[in-house]
């Protein structure tokens, strides 16, 4: 069964460093998302991406964040200068194949630890 994959599973970085989180969505999906979950809190929407541009973003998704689909398979989230409060689990999701549905399929997540 097709699935969303994410790498790395765990990333440790120092405050102020740039990190790139990688995702490979399900191959025929057209809509891509990033969410985050701070430990013990609810899952929060960050950004949605369709047709090579951001379709919606949350207040969390400020200028320090960017997303890119550099090729036909990868979808990345970049944090330019990490802060302690960026420590969280980051989930990638995708949806929308040949017939658009709204079932988002999530990857296993990348745990980001900022020290």
């Amino acid at each position, binding site marked *: 069964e097709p699935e969303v994959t994410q790498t790395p599973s765990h990333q440790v970085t120092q405050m102020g460093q740039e990190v790139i989180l990688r995702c490979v969505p399900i191959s025929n999906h057209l809509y891509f998302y990033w969410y985050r979950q701070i430990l013990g*809190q609810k899952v929060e929407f960050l950004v949605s991406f369709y047709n090579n541009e951001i379709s919606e973003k*949350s207040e969390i998704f400020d200028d320090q964040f960017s997303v890119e689909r550099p090729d036909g398979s990868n979808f990345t989230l970049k944090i330019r200068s990490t802060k302690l409060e960026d420590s969280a689990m980051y989930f990638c999701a995708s949806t929308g194949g040949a017939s658009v549905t709204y079932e988002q399929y999530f990857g296993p997540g990348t745990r980001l630890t900022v020290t």
Partner: protein
Amino acid sequence: AQSVTQPDIHITVSEGASLELRCNYSYGATPYLFWYVQSPGQGLQLLLKYFSGDTLVQGIKGFEAEFKRSQSSFNLRKPSVHWSDAAEYFCAVGRQKLVFGQGTRLTINP
């Protein structure tokens, strides 16, 4: 504003007992509703969804949920839980952007 409330942070049931997890939502249009399950250290797995039609929807692992528009609820049920059902359960509403509840942690007593 869209929101989801899961009133129960933690529920403990005995193996073989029935289960109901509550979810209330606030959404401006016809809601698309979802239940996801998250096992420790794992991602979010879709259990079931409601878009339209029959208000009782069946999902994987023997779960079902009932949409009640008048109560703005989408409660998750299972007639008999198994030890492997221990996990965190999230209700969500939305279309392109999902809004999640805070989750209900389910513990199963043997």
